[in-house]
């Protein structure tokens, strides 16, 4: 087993363990911290796939910025296990049904996918390097890229408008 494989197994186990702990942690702050661990593990996978730019952007945007906002909200809301109101039974059943359907869709999609012939390009792919990614984004996908940036801008303006309304 080479070092790449050792790292792959380590990161995979870390990611799955973290994801399970996100769901089963009682304390929401702990959940967020485990989610950060998941993001770090996924960034590690990106690096194994030679997509350094994606890895670091994933860290900066998701683990660094969005999760900090989550933490802000949870820390200020002071959510404790004791103060949490008991959930409605119908809500729980609805949650189980929704989660189960999602699982069904995922399993069906995985069964359809041609997994045997699609092997991850460990250490070989180069689409995630910043040079290639920039060329792809600004040549092949320039229209969707610009439209999504306008979308983000409008979201920002919307937040400012809502925040200003007294």
């Amino acid at each position, binding site marked *: 087993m080479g070092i790449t494989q050792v790292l792959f197994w380590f990161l995979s186990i870390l990611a799955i363990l973290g994801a399970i702990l996100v769901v089963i942690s009682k304390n929401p702050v702990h959940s967020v911290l485990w989610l950060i661990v998941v993001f770090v593990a996924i960034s590690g996978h990106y690096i194994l796939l030679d997509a350094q730019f994606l890895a*670091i952007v994933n*860290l*900066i945007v998701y*683990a*660094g910025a969005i999760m*900090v906002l989550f933490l802000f909200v949870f820390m*200020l809301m002071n959510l404790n296990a004791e103060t949490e109101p008991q959930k409605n039974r119908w809500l729980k059943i609805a949650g189980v049904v929704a989660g189960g359907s999602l699982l069904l869709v995922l399993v069906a999609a995985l069964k359809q996918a041609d997994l045997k012939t699609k092997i991850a390009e460990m250490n070989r792919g180069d689409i995630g390097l*910043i040079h290639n990614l920039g060329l792809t984004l600004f040549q092949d996908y320039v229209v969707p890229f610009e439209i999504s940036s306008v979308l983000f801008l409008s979201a920002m303006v919307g937040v400012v408008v809502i925040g200003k309304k007294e």
Partner: protein
Amino acid sequence: MHPLLLAMDWVFLIEKAVLILIIISVSLLIAMYETYAERKVAAFMQDRRGPNRAGPFGLLQPLADGMKLFMKEEIIPNSSSRFLFVLGPGLAMLTAMMTSAVVPWSSHFHLFGRDVDLQIADVNIGILYIFGVVSMGVYGIMIGGWASNNKFSLLAAIRGASQIISYELAMGLSIIALLMITGTLSLGQIVHQQMEGHYYVLLQPLGFLIFLICAFAECNRTPFDLSEAENELNFGYHQEYSSMKLGFYLFAEYINMFISSAVMSTLYFGGYDIPFVNDAALGASIGQNPLAALQFLSLFIKIAIFIFFFMWVRWTIPRFRYDQLMNLGWKVLIPLALINMVATGFIVLLKANHWHF
């Protein structure tokens, strides 16, 4: 794996491990003596003597301080979440250390028939790596402040985190303008470009100014040290901490200061380049190893000047109010950085077009 390949790998690993060890010890040593320098500079500014009892010129003062911190009682508050309480300072220290991995400390030494680069990893996303690690640094403060289970700590942690996030934006925007000129994110190549051409501070004066201000904010240094404003928040996010856990927080600040000085020297002041000297010609006459040592020295002098500047500002300028801090970040620095970015892009395009519209 082929046995020869395996053998090569080991030498490489050992080389990097030794390098990491050296760089971390040097950072710690520098951080130690930064505390000494801080007190000496403060004393100089306020017409006092500063530490002068332990050893000649008080040079052993950092050791005495460290010893004191280690001897203090370790207090973990009853109502805190214990694991996170310990994790907080650890994270702060870890992220402070990790940024040093991509800084090129000098060109290469020629030892034992190998060229040993004084850079742990020359990844092609160098600057973004630093941003990624710095953005993780927020968690050290936030986890510490929250785990203390103290309202003042929590408020200070949230203040600190929102400040760091706000100033990260302006910092990123000022870096984009620099990257348009360099065309690369690798710190090693940026230094090479500056050795052959101008220092980028000449091409990007506004960008450098914005980066400098944001670096102050990122390091939580005065005038941006709102997360430890003792007259409003008792002591700040590390109020419940004692002993070396407190020491880690304080130490991480000094390491951050050291690393951000190194990054600023690298990005805008030519890194390990010796100013006004043609390094390649010098290397041809005195050999590679002395040249590398001189370049290392040159970088450290630049870093020392920046560190002195950090301290100078700390003992001269009072702290901002919180709304002033946010106004400066969002309404002054970000628009300025955007203007700088657009202007730089315009000039770069014009130059690529041979100064024709």
